[in-house]
Every structure is written in C-alpha cells, then in structure tokens.
C-alpha cells in the first residue's frame, strides 16, 4: 500500500499506509489524522480538506479541475501549492506523497 505522510502546520509527521483508490482526505479521516475537516464529505464543496503539497510532488499530481481551483479560493490561506485532499486519489505513483495541513481549515 502506498505510504502517505501527513505533516501538521507545526511540522509533526504521521506516515500511514493508505489503500489505493482512496483519497488523501479519506486516508486522513479514516485514520483520525487531525487538521483535515472535510465538512462536505468530499463533494468539492467546502475547502476544509485543504492541504499544501511540496513542489516535488505537486507537479506529479493530476492537474486540479476548475471547480477545485475555484474552491481553493475559499480556503484558509491558499498558496500556489494548495490542493483539496478530497480530489487527490491515491495511486502507486503517489507512494511517498507528503502533504502539509494548514494552521486551520476555516
């Protein structure tokens, strides 16, 4: 199973094996990783599963669709490397992915 590392805004790391096909958001919620709220449950409607992706990984991710980019406008402190973790589906290629959660989600 691919390993995904969730890093808190304070720098605390948690690496988990997450089943392929799940989203980075689901991986966090199912394993009680703090910092990802996912209020809308993954329908790309709330921007509370917002994460920052390091440059190395950001370019390997499938590009965000318009709806996601629009939603990121609403996120707490969006940056150039912002993504919604509900839209990041875990594959073998993403083994080792690191995401950082913002200070808060709303």
């Amino acid at each position, binding site marked *: 199973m691919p390993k995904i590392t969730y890093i808190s805004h304070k720098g605390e790391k948690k690496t988990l094996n997450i089943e392929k096909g799940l989203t980075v958001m689901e991986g966090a919620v199912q394993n009680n990783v703090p910092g990802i709220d996912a*209020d809308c*449950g993954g*329908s790309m409607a*709330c*921007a*509370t599963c917002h994460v920052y992706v390091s440059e190395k990984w950001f370019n390997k991710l499938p590009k965000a669709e318009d709806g996601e*980019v629009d939603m990121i*406008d609403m996120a707490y402190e969006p940056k150039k490397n912002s993504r919604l973790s509900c839209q990041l589906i875990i594959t073998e290629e993403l083994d080792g992915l690191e995401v950082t959660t913002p200070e808060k989600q*709303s």
Partner: protein
Amino acid sequence: MINVDVIIIGAGPVGIFAVHQLGIKGLKAVVIDNLDKAGGQCIELYPEKPIYDIPAVPECTGEELTVRLLEQIKPFKTEFILNERVEEVKESNNNWEIKTSANKKFKAPNIIIAGGVGSFEPRKLSLKEAEKFEEKSVFYSVKNKEDFKNKNLSIFGGGDSALDWALELSKFSKVTLIHRRDEFRGAPHTLEEIKKLQSKGKLSIKTPCQLVSIEGDDTIKSISIKYDDGKIEKIQTDFILSFFGLIMKLGPIAEWGLNMDKKTINVNPENFETNKKGIFAAGDICNYPGKLKLILSGFHEVALASVECFKRARPNEKYRFEFTTSSKTIQDRLGKK
C-alpha cells in the same frame, strides 16, 4: 412562546422532508435555519450540480431537489424561520423550549436536528487584525448598500458575490477588486462588465495578491496587499468587503448535552432519538453504525423519527401505520379529494 409538535432545526432536504413525514401524521412543525433560504447544502454549496442518487429521480440539481421538496410540503403550510440560529435548548415539563438568535421562542415535545454539518457562516479574513474592525470597517455581507456610498472600497474574492458587488458598488464608490489569482469565476456577462469598467478606469483590479495588513485605529485608513512577486502596495480604504463563501460551524448544538462523536450526534437507529428523550437527529449530522451521508438516508431517518415524534406529541392516541395511496386521512391532509 409558540407551541408546535416538532421543532425542526435545519432547512436542508432532510429537514424539509421531515415536515412531510410529520405532516401526513397530522403533526405541526416549524423549521428554523441560519441561511436566508431553504435548501441547506443543496442550495448553498451545489445549487447547479446534478445529483444522481435520489430514488426515481435519475438526475436533478441541488436547486431542483429543493424546489420539488418545498412543493411536496406545500399542503402543510409550514412556517420557516430563516436567518436565525437556534441558540438555546432547555427542558421544561417533558417538553423542549428553544430560543433563536432573534429571541424567538418555541415550545414542542420534539426537536429534530437536521443540521448537516452545522450552520453556515461567512468565511472570515485570515488576517488577525481584521477581527477588531468587523462590522465597523470590515464586512462579510452587504445589508444596505447606501452605507457604502462615496467611499473607498476594497473588495476581496474571485467568485460571483465579489464580482456582483464590485459591479454594483462601483456605480457610486471607488472600488478596488482584489483576488489571489488572475482568473475570476463569475457569470460571463458580469466578467465582461467588470472588464469594461476597468478599462474606463472606474474600477481597479489587483491580482494576484493577498491582504497582508490593515492600517487604522478605530476605523480603517488603508490596507496593504502583497503581490505574488513580493511587491507590496498600499491602498486607501474605508471599508473592506470580503466574499470568501460560507463555512459550516456546528455552533451551539455541541452544548446541548447530546452524546457526540466528533461533529456528529449519536442516535438510536430504531427511531433516531438522541440520548435526550424527544430530541432526534437525522441526515448528515447523525451517527449510528453503518451511517451513510446520503440524502436518501436522511429521508429514511426522518420517516422513522416522525413515528416517535407522533407518540410523544399525541400520547393519548394510538399510532397507526398508513399508506399515502390508501389512507383517506393522509389524502385529506395533502388536500387531495
């Protein structure tokens, strides 16, 4: 104090359908929601997105679903209390009394909480100092546009609300529209109008940049924004208007003594009652083994909860299960001849 049989908290699809299930049993409900219209997440988050898993409706948008549900409950002439949040819930002689943010009071033997993920509130600016200017120089909605006449306005956001207000307020004020990226997302017509105003020098657009500081004592004098390339610009500003959509906050529900699991309320899946007799939870906000956050699950949940509500509201009557196809009583209540 107004007496009803059931107080429904939340006017989303599940709250609306609760009115139906209670109504066909002859129970009177009132619905309270913090938004300015019924529909909940369906209307606020995805009015135009199609939903494909409503039984017998192959495809409909969030807005269409809301319109149809409201049509379905018309016969019950239910009062909707909008723009108000339920702040307090207290017990009184086997009944529940609630108070809204506008101090309206209701009393009922039953409460159904169909509150989704909580009430919608505007997403605030992340800059800490914005807080002390709130409702003085920083606003998250426009109640009366006259308040913003002949002023320097800095409007933040890239969606429809930001664009619409930039357009409207630029008629009589100096508007600067600020957004974190170059693309705006709004109706094509609005975007065109904005571009026109910009080229005429009647509105200025600053992108890609974000707010970094606010200068002023009691009221705002100016703001500073930072471009992606690091450049900082000061803009003379009387009012900040910020439109970053809405977020959902659980709010006071967490303080009503209900057994909670994170942001959800634990219920008995036989009748969707919480640990408090007469308080029920349904839809996304309830939690029980196997819970699915689907609209259709919420419909089932309020159908069962309505039976228990009947028993509490009509303790001297026997509950009779009836079909809408064959029950004269139900058909009367629906106004069918």
